[in-house]
């Protein structure tokens, strides 16, 4: 089967006016032709198959939104090629629109003053969804989340969580092949986040919808994505499975122990004993970052038990958040 999204060596450059400082500078800017070229996306390639959920990550200003805008057809790439469902998005924007759904966490496409169900009806007519499919979709939604209480509520009276949920439902309504979710869980509480994750997961499973998810919440990524793409300063840093990402950085685990006596002093003693692993201490725990390629955690524990009395212990896997943070800060080596 042909991939649903194909991106080949895509670059996007913006012309930005070089602004000068102060009042005098601002006046001179009025006549300035002094532009600089900013490369927002630099030679990015990827292919995405139908039905995948891809986490598209990167620090703020990395070029994520620009890439998404190019995939939706709002922006035209400076060079390179994008095919979405076999179409060039910016050339067939209106046609492409029928095949995609978008949610921008900060904005709503819903009719602000109207009850949600009216927005749904408008979308049904705009996207020309057959009545039967529309009803089935509503029933399916109802089986996933209880939409009855919000269905007749005007959008402007909704909480942020309800509104985001509604926006996601609206984006999936016409059964698009691809849905772009741009920071869908921003500013939401834990239970609403969980609800939205379950919803997206179910829609992806049932409808085989491809989902491109940008987020800063690693919880979203862990819950939904098997594959992640990381981009920074317009360049692609990583494109692979999320599990592979962790091993990519060595198999680190954090061993936390509590021992008798003063922790700081004990920590120093342990550091001497285990020179190959960094040891830190806080009020409650002594943490040892164990590289499992060098020694198994269980062996480290054994060695420690011979020298001191351990009263309690905890084992922490390195989280995707730690890994991503490391990539943002240091890049991929």
């Amino acid at each position, binding site marked *: 089967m042909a991939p649903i999204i194909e991106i080949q060596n895509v670059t996007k450059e913006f012309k930005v006016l070089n602004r000068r400082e102060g009042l005098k500078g601002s006046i001179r800017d009025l006549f300035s032709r002094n532009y600089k070229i900013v490369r927002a996306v630099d030679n990015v390639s990827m292919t995405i198959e139908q039905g995948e959920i891809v986490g598209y990550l990167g620090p703020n200003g990395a070029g994520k939104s620009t890439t998404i805008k190019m995939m939706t057809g709002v922006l035209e790439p400076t060079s390179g090629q994008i095919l979405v469902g076999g179409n060039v998005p910016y050339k067939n924007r209106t046609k492409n629109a*029928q095949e995609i759904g978008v949610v921008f966490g900060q904005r709503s496409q819903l009719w602000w003053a109207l009850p949600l169900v009216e927005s749904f009806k408008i979308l049904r007519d705009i996207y020309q969804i057959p009545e039967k499919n529309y009803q089935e979709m509503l029933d399916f939604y109802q089986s996933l989340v209880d939409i009855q209480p919000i269905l007749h509520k005007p959008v402007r009276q909704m909480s942020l969580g309800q509104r985001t949920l509604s926006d996601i439902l609206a984006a999936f309504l016409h059964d698009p092949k691809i849905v772009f979710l741009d920071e869908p869980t921003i500013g939401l509480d834990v239970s609403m986040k969980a609800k939205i994750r379950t919803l997206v997961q179910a829609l992806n499973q049932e409808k085989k919808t491809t989902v491109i998810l940008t987020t800063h919440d690693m919880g979203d990524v862990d819950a939904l994505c098997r594959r992640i793409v990381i981009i920074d300063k317009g360049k692609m840093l990583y494109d692979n499975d999320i599990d592979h990402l962790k091993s990519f950085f060595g198999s680190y685990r954090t061993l936390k122990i509590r021992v008798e006596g003063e922790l700081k002093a004990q920590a120093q003693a342990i550091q001497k004993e285990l020179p190959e692993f960094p040891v830190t201490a806080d009020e409650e725990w002594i943490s040892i970052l164990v590289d499992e390629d060098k020694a198994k955690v269980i062996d480290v524990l054994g060695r420690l038990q011979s020298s001191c009395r351990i009263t309690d212990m905890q084992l922490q896997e390195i989280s995707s958040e730690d890994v991503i943070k490391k990539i943002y800060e240091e890049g991929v080596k």
Partner: protein
Amino acid sequence: MKLKKYITLTRAGIIEALQFRLATVVMVIGNLLYLIVVYFLWKSIYASAGTDVVNGMTFSDTLIYLVLATALFNFMEMYTVWEIGRSIQSGKIVLDLLKPIEYRKYLFWSYSGTFVTQFIFTFLPTFIIVAAVTHGGIHMGVNLLFFVASVVMAVSINYSIDFLVGTVCLFTESIWGINIMKQVIVLLLSGATIPLAFFPEKLREVVELLPFAAIYDVPLKFLLWDGVSMEPHEPWCMLLFQLFWSIVMMVLSKLFWKASLRQITVNGG
């Protein structure tokens, strides 16, 4: 089926407008206040002129003209410039561009519901009041049919001009000044603030050829027309004049939008 796509937007617009009852009331009151001001202003102009007829228009002619111009304005003004500008600033335009409808149509039909409500809540009442107060100042005959046809084209021309100006916002990213400038020019040159008959001869001849005259002056002339005072071919010429401008402006605004959008998609917004 195809039409349903658009009618649904009209329907939404009507429901949306009806959600804000208080706004409707305030609008009707504001409209009344404006009409009172117009009444006294022109009453004093006629009083100081010392004659009953100024520039071929009697006081009641002028009043009908201006009152109905206001009513027409209320119902035709689409705040398109404002709308486009705001969605550019907030970035909402991205979502609108991703609807499977051309943006120009999408915006028009989204607004069309307001036409319906405004027509019922402001234009019709004003029209009835004026007709009643002036005792036959408005001829009820074939001129009304011409008027309706004329208003349809006026709406189209007005929208095209608005859309054209709104597109400029893509480049300037500011709305206020552009919007005010557009409003002043359109209202003045279309005869909505001062009847075109009051313009100096030379200026009037030029202005009457511009598209603005086709927005207010032509429909209003039809309303004031008593059914006999024009040559038989004249009303048709006026309609043709409107048709000409509505096509020209539509093509212009479409082309400009297309070119601008390309510019934006290339350089980013």
